[in-house]
């Protein structure tokens, strides 16, 4: 690990030196060579979880575009951005890549797509308000292919066993807490948890965002109730202890599939994971979805979303071909494919909706809720927000409250201070 890390650093520095010296000179988009028979080769980096579906999409795409060859590459999610950025900064990069735009926008290599969209006569109405919301400086730099909405998954079998009515689509967080308490029972091997919340800060701060607050607000007091709720859930014993989650490296997918968790709050991609589990025989219970609970006074079915999109390298040698595939995957056809796999897609119309809901033979039964969800962005798509505010400040400070080291009030105070010092002073100018 140590050695690999220093090697990576060294390689990076060498690349830095070379790029630094040849600054402004001949920049090359990618190293993929075209074969002689007129075929165009493209290279694309995709999220590990999405690789399969992109390969499927490419199989379909190839039928109409036999001259475009695409190879896919992926990296573990945790190192995804550092790896693709390293490749891209070396010049030997990708024509296309997936990701959340805020992680890549500072590179300045995202190709503006406006002209291509205009030329291709693409219908952008399907992207809804997202098309405008995620423009940067008035330009479209990415198109979303899935939205990562939050949902509440529940284990129907457990609810049936206990004779407790299923979670409703209109439930406040306090009602959720009571329900979780009701569903919790047993000890040791027979322990049943009322709920599971992954050890991400989003799982506790979401109820504040549902009220319209944002993690970079100057006044973060709405986050107090949010954090308190998570502390209370742990106090009730209805969720796994934070310290235990962290020290066992607990994961929402394995935990929920085990069958001793009544409710799991996680993103829309979990549908595909559970279907996969059913296919492999690891999911032995009945399950369904409802919208996540909401704070008092907020309308039901209000959720958080975080679009995952495809971006194009502005140095690509084959922008036309690359855009063809980008358009295919983020547009109607790709959306139908992704939707049929259980993803909530960026592009929506009647046909995509039909593909998303399926013919009723596949679980979950109640996907229809998510076609009418009101969404707030999980965090503002600004540089540094995810890496500094969410993954450091909210995670580190929130953790201290969750393990009982510090009061909720003090924690939010400290978060407010750190957001100002470490993020706002740098990026919020």
């Amino acid at each position: 690990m140590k050695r690999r890390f220093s090697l990576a650093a060294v390689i990076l520095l060498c690349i830095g030196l070379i790029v630094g010296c040849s600054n402004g000179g001949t920049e090359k988009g990618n190293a993929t060579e075209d074969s002689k028979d007129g075929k165009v080769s493209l290279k694309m980096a995709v999220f590990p979880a999405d690789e399969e579906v992109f390969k499927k999409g490419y199989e379909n795409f190839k039928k109409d575009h036999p001259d475009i060859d695409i190879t896919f590459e992926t990296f573990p999610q945790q190192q995804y951005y550092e790896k693709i950025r390293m490749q891209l900064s070396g010049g030997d990069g990708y024509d296309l890549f997936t990701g959340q735009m805020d992680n890549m926008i500072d590179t300045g290599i995202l190709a503006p797509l406006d002209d291509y969209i205009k030329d291709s006569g693409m219908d952008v109405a399907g992207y809804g308000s997202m098309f405008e919301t995620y423009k940067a400086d008035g330009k479209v730099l990415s198109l979303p292919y899935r939205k990562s909405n939050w949902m509440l998954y529940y284990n129907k079998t457990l609810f049936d066993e206990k004779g407790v009515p299923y979670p409703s689509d209109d439930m406040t967080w306090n009602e959720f807490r009571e329900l979780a308490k009701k569903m919790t029972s047993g000890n040791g091997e027979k322990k049943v948890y009322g709920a599971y919340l992954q050890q991400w800060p989003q799982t506790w701060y979401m109820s504040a965002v549902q009220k319209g607050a944002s993690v970079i607000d100057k006044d973060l007091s709405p986050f107090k109730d949010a954090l308190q709720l998570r502390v209370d859930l742990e106090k009730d014993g209805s969720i796994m202890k934070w310290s235990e989650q962290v020290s066992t490296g607990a994961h929402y997918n394995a935990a929920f599939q085990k069958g001793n968790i009544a409710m799991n709050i996680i993103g829309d991609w979990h549908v595909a994971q559970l279907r996969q589990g059913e296919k492999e025989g690891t999911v032995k219970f009945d399950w369904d979805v409802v919208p996540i609970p909401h704070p008092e006074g907020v309308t039901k079915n209000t959720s958080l979303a975080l679009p995952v999109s495809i971006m194009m390298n502005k140095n690509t040698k084959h922008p036309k071909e690359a855009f063809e595939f980008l358009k295919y995957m983020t547009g109607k056809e790709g959306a139908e494919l992704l939707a049929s796999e259980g993803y909530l897609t960026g592009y929506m119309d009647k046909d995509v909706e039909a593909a998303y809901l399926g013919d009723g033979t596949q679980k979950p039964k109640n996907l229809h809720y998510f076609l009418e969800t009101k969404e707030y962005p999980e965090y503002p798509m600004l540089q540094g927000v995810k890496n500094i505010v969410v993954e450091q400040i909210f995670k580190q400070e929130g953790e201290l409250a969750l393990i009982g080291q510090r009061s909720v009030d003090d924690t939010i105070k400290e978060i407010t201070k750190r957001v100002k010092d470490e993020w706002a002073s740098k990026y919020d100018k």
Partner: protein
Amino acid sequence: MKPRNKVKSKTIRRNRLVGYTFLLPNIIGFLLFILIPVIASFIMSFTSWNGFGNIEFIGLENYKKLLDDANFRISFINSILFMLISVPITLLISVLIAVALNQGVRFVKVFRTAVFLPYVTATIAVAAVWQLIFNPSLGPINGTLMKLGIDAPPGWLSSPSWALLSVSVVYIWHSVGYYMILFLAGLQNIPDYLYEAAELDGAGKISKFFHITLPMLSPVLFFTTIIGVINSFKVFDLIYVLTGGGPGRSTHVLVYDIYNTAFKQFEYGYASAMAYVLFLVILIISVIQFKGQKKWVNY
């Protein structure tokens, strides 16, 4: 005389050329992978760069920024604490084990291997096992403590006040084997006649240890202290796997902070400045040690 001299210098020159040719692969490797990057990152520490586009020279700005960077301050303190905990204990334990093994106990090879084994085991595997051992509710440590009647044993890795200590324990366990081997080699170099002479003069076991073993071992001790300090400052992998710098920032050490800055926030210039401060700190500590060695190291 003259022609002979010429012939001789020709041979010498040829020999030298051969020698350099043999060294060449190594020197190229050193240049490419160490010297050039070291210089490049020094230059980079005066710039602001995210890996793309123009490199902007900002002079000493990065170093100034370090002065009031709370993350850096915390990781700095954690690194020093980690060093202060782990180095003395590691050295103490490894000296004791080495001396014990040097007594000619039975199954020396078995014990030696057993102590050395952790050092050659992959850190990830080591971390995974220790994570289980430290598990606050299911782990054997807390299981035992609870049986002994302690109601609320510490959370170890998941407690901000214990996490750094717990990581140190794993680090010590992991590296004792390496230092033990060094000490063992040093012990075997101590001639027997010193002990015999001391015995004739009526020295006991303890006074033999303090008056012969320790002074004769001092060069090794000096070397291991230097290496130990450097290694403890460089700790990264264990922390990355065991705690990820948490809980809160309680195990956020310098190299972890550098990693975060460079590969999560993509501030290469700033990260290079941090790396150079780390280098400076290690350098200063090493210089102090070298100055101090005259007082206690016997060659």
